Each structure stands twice: as structure tokens, then as C-alpha cells.
């Protein structure tokens, strides 16, 4: 290890000394906000690897996007808001194109960047996290959170529970607990679930877990005492593993334990062993490494020694999520190139490209991702896209996630008014006049 560090140091010094200014060809700057350190690293690493590998694969295979190479700028945030802000300020004006799209991978950092990026005119894609009401493109022109929001997911979970209970009317009198990370992220679904509880008559029981989430004995003792019929979880990092282990130790039935899609990766369930069998989580894309794009990644990235991760972890849930994040970003850039008829795109053009994104199944198949996820179509007023969520389940003996349901639609009657209300509040607070989308 020491030798490696020394050799990298020496190599780095030499590289710095010998670095010649590169030819002034245009490059597409794509920052990657990683966290490979800290209590959230187990989840941050596979995501960062997926993002990195897809972009590297494009560079190696096609020479970038439409022939323009991608310049991936990594920055370590440690899932810490202040370090995230430092990263953003550092990468945003990177030459030559400025940061084309920022993916903070943290709800806290997203909240920081929403006002800043809107002023700096850099699009932010908080893919399935961040501020839910950013779905309203009229108020948040620079922020995107497709393919679905936390509120959609909470609504879908209620739908799934209703289905399993034999109809929505059977939800009356049931008790549903929410174990959540005590932060902006974890609190996102509460209001939706409260509304749903009002409508369907179930009892809603929120249980907070403080950062970083290693201590949950009291929470699960309470669950044991109160005996909720279902438990949902909004967790991240070590919190997930601990919760699933605790649930297993109080013998809570795993097929009644539903995690948000950030609480449903291999890292989260493996530590609990067989106890985690049957655990459910939200999903918007398939797990596994059996897609054509993975073969290309292995061939162009791993065989060339350009990879940062391990070959046998390709296709993990969060790896694929990083990959699809990169796909959305690169397709938006491609779109921008087409729309503005130039290869030297700017962040503002990428925003236009993202807003006109129409990722069909045919295009996904072309990209090597057949049946991987749902088609996404973004419009001026809808920045959250299809807003559909599926459920996946963990099979502990095969050590595999698999999709067990189709994609559910959200409950528009509950979620839409909430989005409208919250985005209107934001607009009023910040003197934003919602733009006209017609």
C-alpha cells in the first residue's frame, strides 16, 4: 500500500512536471460528485464507478459523445454539504465547456445548489432524489429530478401495500411505520404519507434515525413493541445495513419491509445474510450485468485498465444507477448538440437538451440497455418524467435482486397538489415568477 502511494506520488510529481498543455480541442466537462470516504461510502463507491465507467467507455469506444471527448472531473464530497459546495464552486467553471450538468448525489447538497446553479445557469440533475417539487419545471427551469420523485415513490409504496392487503380499502386501521434518515432527505416522504394516511385511514408512524445511523436499537425496539404491519425505510449509507440487520434480529417479516431505492443495493442486504431474504425496495431500472452495455464496459474500460472499481461488482444495483445517470446526462448532451447544431455545447444548451429529452425504448436498446428501464420524456413543465416506480426483491440464497412487479403509476391526486403547493411556496419565498410553458 505504502509503495503504491509513494509510486503514485512520484508518478504524479513527474506528470505534473512534464504536463504539456493539451491540444485545444473542445471537451465536454462532466463533474462527478463522489463519496468514497465516510459513512456513506459503501453506497457512494458503486454509483461513482458506474458513472465513471460509462463515460470512460464512451471515450474509449466512440471518442466521447458524437466524437467530442468527455472530461470527467471527480470531486470528493464525503456526502458533506460544505465539501459539496466547495466541489461545486471548484468544478463549475472548468474549461473549456464549464460543468455541463451537475449530479450532486445528495439531497442536502442539492438543496444548496438549487439557488446557486439556477443563477450560474448550470443544469442540476438530482436523479430520483433532491427537492421533490423541482418536478415543477415552471418554477425550477434548471433543476431536473426524473425519472421519479420521493413523493411518487411513497405513493407507490402505499399502492403496493394496498395491493398486498387485498385492496386499498383494507388499509384502514393498518399501521405503517417509516424509518427515516433524520435529514432533508429522510423527511421528504413524510408529508405524502401523512396525506395518504388521511385518505386511506391507516396509522402512520414516523421514526427518525440520526446521522450516520449506526445506532438504531431504540427504533427497532419501538417497532417490536408497536408491531406495525409494514415498515418503510428512507435510509442511506451504513444506516441501511444496520436497519436490515436489526429488522432481521427482531424477526420482522422482510416481505413487509420496503426500502426507498437508495436503500436497496447489495451492500445493504449482504451483511444481514439469510435474514435479509425477501426484503423489498423501490427501483426504476433493472439490476445485473447481462446487458450489452456491460460487455462494452468490460471490453473498453476493464480490459484496458481504465477502471476504478472491481470487475465482479459491475451490475450491482447502485453501479447500474450510476450508469443510467450517465446515460441520461450524455443523451441530454447529444440532444443539445442536435438542437443547437454545434458540438461545442454549453450548460445552457444542455439544459435545453435535457428539457427535450425523449429516451424511448428503441433508443435505450440502441444504447445497449434493452428492457433496462422505462422510457423517459421530459417537458417544460414536467421535470420529473414518467414518475413510475417498480418494486424489487432480494433473494438471499442466490444473492440477487430481481424485479417482482411492473411499474406502478404515482397517485396524482395526492402528489400533484403537494408539488404545486411546495413549488409555489418556493417561488414566493424567492420572488420567482413561474415561467410560461405553453
Amino acid at each position, binding site marked *: 500500500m505504502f509503495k503504491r*502511494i509513494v509510486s*503514485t*506520488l512520484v508518478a*504524479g*510529481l513527474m*506528470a*505534473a512536471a512534464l*504536463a504539456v498543455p493539451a491540444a485545444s480541442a473542445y471537451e465536454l466537462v462532466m463533474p462527478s460528485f*463522489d463519496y*468514497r*470516504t465516510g459513512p456513506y461510502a459503501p453506497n457512494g463507491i458503486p454509483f461513482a464507478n458506474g458513472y465513471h465507467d460509462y463515460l470512460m467507455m464512451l471515450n474509449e469506444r466512440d471518442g466521447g459523445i458524437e466524437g467530442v471527448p468527455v472530461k470527467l472531473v*471527480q*470531486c*470528493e464530497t*464525503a456526502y*458533506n*454539504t*460544505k465539501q459539496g*459546495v*466547495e466541489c461545486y*464552486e*471548484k468544478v*463549475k*467553471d472548468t474549461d473549456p465547456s464549464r460543468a455541463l450538468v451537475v449530479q450532486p448525489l445528495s*439531497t*442536502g447538497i442539492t*438543496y*444548496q445548489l438549487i*439557488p*446557486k446553479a*439556477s*443563477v*450560474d445557469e448550470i443544469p442540476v440533475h438530482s436523479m430520483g432524489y433532491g*427537492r421533490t417539487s423541482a418536478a415543477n419545471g415552471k418554477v425550477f427551469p434548471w433543476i431536473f429530478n426524473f425519472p421519479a420523485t420521493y413523493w411518487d415513490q411513497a405513493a407507490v409504496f402505499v399502492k403496493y401495500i394496498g395491493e398486498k392487503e387485498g385492496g386499498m380499502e383494507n388499509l384502514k386501521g393498518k399501521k405503517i411505520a417509516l424509518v427515516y434518515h*433524520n*435529514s*432533508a432527505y429522510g*423527511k*421528504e416522504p*413524510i*408529508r405524502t404519507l401523512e396525506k395518504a394516511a388521511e385518505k386511506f385511514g391507516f396509522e402512520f408512524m414516523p421514526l427518525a434515525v*440520526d*446521522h450516520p445511523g449506526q445506532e438504531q436499537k431504540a427504533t427497532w425496539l419501538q417497532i417490536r413493541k408497536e408491531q406495525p404491519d409494514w415498515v418503510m425505510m428512507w435510509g442511506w449509507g451504513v444506516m441501511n445495513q444496520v436497519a436490515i440487520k436489526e429488522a432481521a434480529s427482531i424477526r420482522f417479516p422482510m416481505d413487509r419491509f420496503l426500502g426507498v431505492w437508495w436503500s436497496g443495493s447489495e451492500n445493504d442486504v449482504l451483511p444481514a445474510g439469510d435474514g435479509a431474504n425477501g426484503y423489498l425496495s423501490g427501483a426504476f431500472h433493472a439490476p445485473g450485468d447481462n446487458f450489452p452495455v456491460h460487455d462494452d464496459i468490460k471490453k473498453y474500460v476493464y480490459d484496458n485498465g481504465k477502471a*476504478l472499481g472491481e470487475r465482479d461488482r459491475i451490475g450491482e444495483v447502485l453501479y447500474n444507477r450510476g450508469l443510467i445517470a450517465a446515460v441520461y446526462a450524455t443523451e441530454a448532451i447529444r440532444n443539445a448538440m442536435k438542437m443547437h447544431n454545434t458540438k461545442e455545447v454549453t450548460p445552457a444548451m444542455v439544459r435545453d437538451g435535457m428539457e427535450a429529452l425523449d429516451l424511448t425504448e428503441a433508443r435505450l436498446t440502441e444504447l445497449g440497455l434493452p428492457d433496462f428501464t422505462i422510457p423517459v420524456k421530459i417537458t417544460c413543465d414536467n421535470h420529473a418524467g414518467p414518475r413510475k416506480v417498480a418494486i424489487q426483491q432480494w433473494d438471499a440464497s442466490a444473492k440477487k435482486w430481481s424485479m417482482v412487479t411492473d411499474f406502478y403509476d404515482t397517485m396524482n391526486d395526492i402528489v400533484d397538489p403537494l408539488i404545486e403547493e*411546495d413549488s409555489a411556496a418556493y417561488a414566493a*419565498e*424567492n*420572488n420567482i415568477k413561474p415561467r410560461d410553458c405553453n
Partner: protein
Amino acid sequence: MFYREAGQFKTDYASDQALFPIAQDRWFVLAVLFVAVAVVPFFVDDYWANAITLPFLIYALAAIGLNLLTGYCGQVSLGTGGFMAVGAFSTFKLTTAFPELNFIVVILLSGAITAGVGVLFGIPSLRIKGFYLAVATLAAQFFLVWLFNKVDWFLNYSPTGQISMPPREIFGILITGPRAAPEAKYLFCLIFIGIFALLAKNLVRGRVGRSWMAIRDMDIAAELIGIRPLEAKLTAFAVSSFYVGMAGSLYFGVWLGAAEPIEAFGIEQSFLVLFMIIVGGLGSILGSFLGAAFITLMPILMKNFMVDGLQLAVVTAKHIEITMLGVLIIFFLIVEPHGFARLWQIAKEKLRLWPFPH
């Protein structure tokens, strides 16, 4: 040879009691101030403001606050994060409830509210000392953060527990919010911190500061010579919390613009500020600045050097950075247990003799 008191004659009491009796010191401080006010603003961009100068200035203010309490009055506090939260939430509530109120007034009022809360949590210091007091202030830290997270009124019923700062201007210049110019934010904080550092420096030279130091050095002796511990300790808590509250207010309002209680004001904040004053020097205003500079700027400096300079992988750089910061803290504390301020003092002693040390 040049840097010494000898030969610099004072003809009146005012100049004898000046803050910097040695002319060279005075020029140096004035030169630094001149550069900070007149030169730096031309070079400050978003990165320099948001990642470097604002954190440094705001943490320096918090460190001065804690130093008044811990360094000058000897009362250990682990409640800094909680008190910063009081300042931030006061700012948020005041500025959203009274949008017309001048932002400077909001900051001062936030400081005053924090001072009140600080006095309340300072009451146990009359009974308990040292580690026991540290635990009592730790309770303040956890209680305050829990309170702000729990009671929706403090958050203006925000569904996610995030508070965000609306744009505010002073004399027509935007100071907060994303549209504020980096140089405006920088200058605003600089002027604020400059004034209050000067006040603190004068405060600790006067009667109040001396009574704090007497309590710190030996409270029974201090009582015997007529210093009332109640008054001395509670004023220390009040003034310290006032500073920390203003720092929290600037931290939330000017620097971050949005915050959630647990992450922004957690126990890590308290430790961070405590490390600053320990590394910088207990009982020294200059030390507060040096400590804040070390703790906030060193990681960024190391990161930029390793990632941009040496082209190291980002994650390797981060690991080295974490390790190096720890090693450097230990190294400096072994070399000089009294912190950077003492190093500076030693340098000045040496300078007086230079170049003829005998």
C-alpha cells in the same frame, strides 16, 4: 535590530496603551488590513468567496467567541454548534418574520438572542468545572439541535426541515442569496469580523477580560480579590455566545444560504471550533484566526495540491488529506503545545534579538 520597543518613545498614555505598541506591528497589521480590504476583493470569485474566505472569516469569528469563554475565562464548552444553530435560526425567524429589518440588525439581534441562551446554559458553570462543565454544555449542543429539528415553528413548517435564507440587501447591495456578488459577501463578513475582533481584543485587555483571566487562573483567588464569579462567568458566557451566535448567523445567512439543523450544526461543529482554538492558541485573538485558517484552509490546500498539482486520484488524495491533517495537528501540538499564537510570539522574541542573538 529594527523590530523592538527600544527607541520608540511614548509621550502620552494613549500611545503607551495602544493595541500594537511597536510601530512595525502596527504597520504590519495595517498592511494586512489594507490588502484584505482593498486588494483581495478584486481577486475574489465564487470559489475564493464560498470555499476559502467566507469559511475562514466566519469560523474565525466563532473561534474568537469560544476563545473568550474557554481561552480567557477557562470554561470548557462543547456547545458551539448548538449556539451557532441558535444564531442561525434566530436570523431565519427574524428575517422571514420582519423582511424589512436591516440585515445588520438581524445579525446583532441573533447574537443577542444567542447570548441569552448562552447565559442560560452557563448557569451550571457556577457549580461545576472542567470536564463536568464540558458535559453540561454538550447537553446544550444536543438539546438545541434536537429542538430546532423537532419543533416545526423554527423551520417555518418546511416539510423537509431545511431552512433557506431569502435575499437581503444592505444599502442596496445584495449580501445574501445566490445573486449576491462574492466580493460583497466577502467584504461584508470582513468588516463585521474586523470590528468584532477589535472589540474582543480590547475587551480582554480591560477590566472584564482581566476578571475572566483571574477566574481562569484560580477562581478562589479571584473571589478573594473581589471578583464576583457569577458576574464574570456569566458575562463570559454571554459575550462568547454573542460572538458564536453572530458567526452562526453569517454561516447560515451569508455563506451557506440553506441549512438543515443536524448536519450544519452537529457536534462536529463544536469539535471543529474547539480544535481551532486549541491549535491556534488558547487565550489569544490572533490564535483564533490562525487556528481557523489552519482547520478550514489546510484541507482545501492539501486537496488542491494533491489533485491538481500531483494529479493523484481523488479518493487517494482524500485519504492522505484526512491522515495528514491529524498528523499535522499532532506535530504542531508537540512542537508548540500552546498553539500557533505562541509560535508567533516566539518569532517576535527572536526578531527582537535578530541579528545579534547575544
